[in-house]
């Protein structure tokens, strides 16, 4: 019964998304129509998706093993929280979550009255409902969630133990999907701009809240994923330039570029085609990420097992690309741009463009590096690995350049200024950055790349502090908060890779052993059972200097999946982490452990949090400003101000000397 309900709800979501597309597209085609398409139609798909997710969860929670997804992923011994999250622990169920979030965006986009242009909004809803229809159809026709299993087994193997280990499982995938799907909204607006030709300042205004939301959520998702693989999964590092990690990073890079270039477009309407390409590119890369994770193209610890979704998804991405190119060609008259070039070299516009160039270089690097092994194998049969060493080598100089830009860009005048005045403003930050380099070179010498990073970080922070102290304003602080968060994150990354010490060793009871500069003593090994899994824990006391801490790393064996998972133990302090993984424990109590001292790792998570929160705060301030702005516009008595978009950047400019 649950199976029927689930399939029916998913079919309803698919059909209503198609209906939404049909109705809204016909409304959009009638360009001068005063009546709008029915908004309630956009609510139907999300109701269908909620129904199908609800049916799947109900089957999981009631342990209905006649439903195929439950037979493959459910278990009587999994706790309720992880039973709920097991919906997105495997490909078929996670596609349902994906459809739910996508149709939720469709509902929000379609239900809220259009902020500006009606026909832009109508075409955006049309495009988004087409995307939603595709993914709902993908779930309906290639998904096996609700297939019947006859006869029904009495129990199942449970979800992958790696994914039933930590409460973050309930938060990270939905956040990541919400971020990736936000690019679908940006894409829809880009398509709408191509069709209506309205790619001017107002487009940038309308898109900015969505871009801010997408960016903030995606930042949270990515940093949380890094934290999870470090603190919980015991993979030792937080970022391995794994194909799946890169797949989430690529749309993030382009969304960041869009946020910056959008500022130029909001001011002067320039760069319309570039911003549209960024929006479309971000969506295509997000789709490409889905392809990579689920089609078996890439080999990674992260990927889902290969499913049948690869070819339809590739065809979809190719069709979207072809469609956008066709639209671009149809738009042979161009999208109009402000007269005059980009601006002199020492202007904020140029700085933003340089930022975009650097972000695109990073995107190309990560994309080519991720795809190269796959393509080389397919075309030539050659086996090549492209790993962290390549990505680190290429990205470090680019990120250093980005940091340097971050230190001067936000304070340049839009219209350009002389080198002298820039230098004058940058003197104090330069002194700050240089002194950081000198101090660290004396006190804690390390590799040149790390020293340069720390110096640039000092340079940027000093510039931000100086600017915020002179001109405190809510939106400005929020925007600079993002930069501060990014700097914190980079300092954490540089510090943990430059100063980290790691080592392996075997410790026998009663004989403390020095591993990675830390004295490790084992006082016992306990074996127990939790929720059907066997857990072996080593009771360790680690001493370094006069600090001592007790940690219990473990090994967890899941019979259902015949899989052993390492459960690391981490002692975190603001200055750094002590990270212990249990490699093996034998019968007489001696253990082999891997100990790592990772300084400044906590700054990475703090930096990520500051970035995401500042982004969300920016969004809130923006929405509040807009609401006040529309309220003021509706107050009839005062003469209307000139129709220039009221944005935080304009407000800041107004306060410039």
């Amino acid at each position, binding site marked *: 019964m649950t199976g029927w309900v689930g399939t029916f709800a998913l079919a309803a979501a698919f059909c209503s998304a198609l209906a939404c597309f049909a109705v809204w597209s016909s409304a959009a085609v009638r360009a001068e129509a005063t009546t709008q398409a029915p908004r309630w139609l956009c609510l139907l798909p999300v109701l269908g998706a909620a129904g199908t997710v609800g049916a799947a969860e109900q089957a999981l929670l009631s342990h209905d093993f006649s439903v*195929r997804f439950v037979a493959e992923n459910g278990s009587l011994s999994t706790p309720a929280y992880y039973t709920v999250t097991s919906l997105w622990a495997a490909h078929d169920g996670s596609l349902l979550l994906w459809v739910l979030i996508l149709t939720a965006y469709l509902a929000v986009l379609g239900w809220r009255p259009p902020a500006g242009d009606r026909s832009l909004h109508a075409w955006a809803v049309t495009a988004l409902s087409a995307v939603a229809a595709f993914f709902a159809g993908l779930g309906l026709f290639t998904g096996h969630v609700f*297939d019947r299993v006859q*006869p029904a087994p*009495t129990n199942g*193997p449970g979800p992958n133990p790696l994914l039933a280990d930590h409460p973050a499982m309930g938060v990270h995938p939905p956040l990541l999907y919400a971020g990736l799907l936000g690019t679908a909204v940006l894409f829809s607006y880009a398509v709408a701009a191509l069709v209506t*030709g309205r*790619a*001017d300042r107002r487009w940038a205004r309308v898109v900015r809240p969505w871009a801010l939301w997408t960016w903030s959520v995606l930042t949270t998702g990515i940093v949380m994923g890094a934290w999870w693989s470090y603190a919980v999964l015991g993979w*030792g*590092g937080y970022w391995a330039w794994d194909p799946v990690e890169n797949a989430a990073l690529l749309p993030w890079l382009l969304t960041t570029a869009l946020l910056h270039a959008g500022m130029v477009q909001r001011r*002067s*309407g320039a760069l319309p085609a570039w911003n549209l390409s960024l929006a479309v590119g971000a969506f295509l890369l997000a789709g490409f990420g889905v392809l990579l994770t689920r089609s078996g193209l890439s080999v*990674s*610890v992260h990927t889902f*097992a*290969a499913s049948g979704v*690869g*070819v339809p998804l*590739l*065809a979809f991405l*190719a*069709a979207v690309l072809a469609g956008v190119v*066709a*639209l671009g060609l149809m738009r042979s008259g*161009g999208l*109009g741009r402000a007269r*005059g*070039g*980009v601006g002199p*070299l020492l202007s904020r516009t*140029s700085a933003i*463009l*340089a930022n975009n160039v*650097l972000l*695109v*270089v990073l995107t*190309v*690097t990560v994309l080519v590096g991720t795809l*190269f092994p796959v393509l080389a194998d397919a075309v030539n049969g050659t086996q*090549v*690995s*492209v*790993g*962290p*060493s*390549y990505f680190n080598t*290429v990205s470090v100089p680019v990120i250093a350049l980005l940091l340097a830009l971050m230190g001067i860009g936000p304070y340049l005048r839009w219209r350009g200024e002389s080198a002298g005045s820039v*230098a004058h403003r940058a003197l*104090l930050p330069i002194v700050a950055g*240089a*002194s950081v380099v000198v101090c660290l*070179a004396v006190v804690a*010498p390390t*590799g040149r790349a790390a020293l340069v990073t720390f*110096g640039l970080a000092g340079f940027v922070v000093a510039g931000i502090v100086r600017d915020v102290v002179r001109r405190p304003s809510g939106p400005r602080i929020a925007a600079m908060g993002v930069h501060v968060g990014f700097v914190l994150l980079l300092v954490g990354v540089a510090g943990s890779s430059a100063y980290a*010490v*790691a080592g*392996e060793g075997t410790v026998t009871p009663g004989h403390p052993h020095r591993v990675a500069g830390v004295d490790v003593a084992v006082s016992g090994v306990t074996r127990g059972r939790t929720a059907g899994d066997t857990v072996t824990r080593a009771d360790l006391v680690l001493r370094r200097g006069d600090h001592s801490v007790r940690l219990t790393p473990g090994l967890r064996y899941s019979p*259902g999946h015949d899989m052993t998972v390492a459960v690391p133990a981490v002692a975190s302090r603001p200055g750094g982490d002590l990270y212990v993984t249990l*490699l093996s424990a034998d019968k007489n109590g001696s253990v082999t452990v891997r100990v790592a001292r990772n300084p400044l790792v906590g700054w990475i998570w703090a930096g990520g949090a500051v970035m995401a929160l500042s982004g969300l705060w920016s969004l809130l301030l923006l929405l509040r400003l807009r609401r006040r702005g529309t309220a003021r516009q509706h107050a009839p008595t005062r003469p209307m101000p000139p129709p220039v978009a009221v944005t935080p950047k304009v407000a800041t400019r107004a306060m410039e000397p």
Partner: protein
Amino acid sequence: MVMTRRVWIPVLAVLAVLAAVVALVLTRQPTPPLSTRVDRVAKTLRCPACNGESVAASDTPIARSMRSEITLQLRKGRSPDQVRQWFVARYGADIVTTPSTRGPELLLWALPAGVLLAGGLVLLVRSRGHRPHVQDSTDLARPRALDGRRVLAAAVVCAAAGAAVPAAVALPGRVGSHAGSSAPTTATADRLGPADWVRLGRSLDRRGDQPGAEHAYRQALALAPHSAAARTRLAFDLLRRGHLSSVERLVRPVTGPPGRYRPLALLVLGLAQRGRGEPFVATLHRFLQLAPDHPAAPQVRRLLRSR
């Protein structure tokens, strides 16, 4: 005084930059401990038996052996590049995760540099053509909207083309049927395959759900009547529950040809024969010969000795 401030801040800045440059040039990183150096080399090598993990990140036995090997070689004084070459000679060029600078892999290094140069050039060129920019947008020619019907037609054509491709691929053979090394929970058909039923049965066995396990094995057997795994495990289950009559029929074909399940099949057959009063010693001896370290072997030896 303002004048002196105008003078000494730039002077201070220049001095500070000079000091920083000197510090960067002269800084000598202390040699990191051996374990960190091993870690750094291990990060550049791929674990050959894992899903794309590096040797530093993987906990598999082979990765640990490789780390021991790296430790020994570094201790002997070899350079990281020499160590990497040693591994390349044994595992092929793809054991190293940094692409070389020759051949098509040059693209990996050339492309980022090329894009950076191109982007920088475009930026320079366009900033040259700058004219005082116009703030008001009213004199921009407003681009016309496209004909909506044409747009929809183009969209439908693209969608149809996109839909035709997977249909064309799926028709001749089943899409998505590939022998993956990490076997997906099912490959093609609408139902679980025999291997999945066996796996399900085993996990149910471990949990003690014997009726459920028997169901699962019977399903596997229905789908693959010659599956040694399904036959042996079902027979084992039946043996434990005392249904000895069908055990011999199930398990005898597995005891002949060599295979993974032959020892277990012999054990099951021998115990069933013993339960029915038939000669079983030869069978159990063959079991011990093939699997002397089986967890049940000590009991079987005791059983045979007590006769």
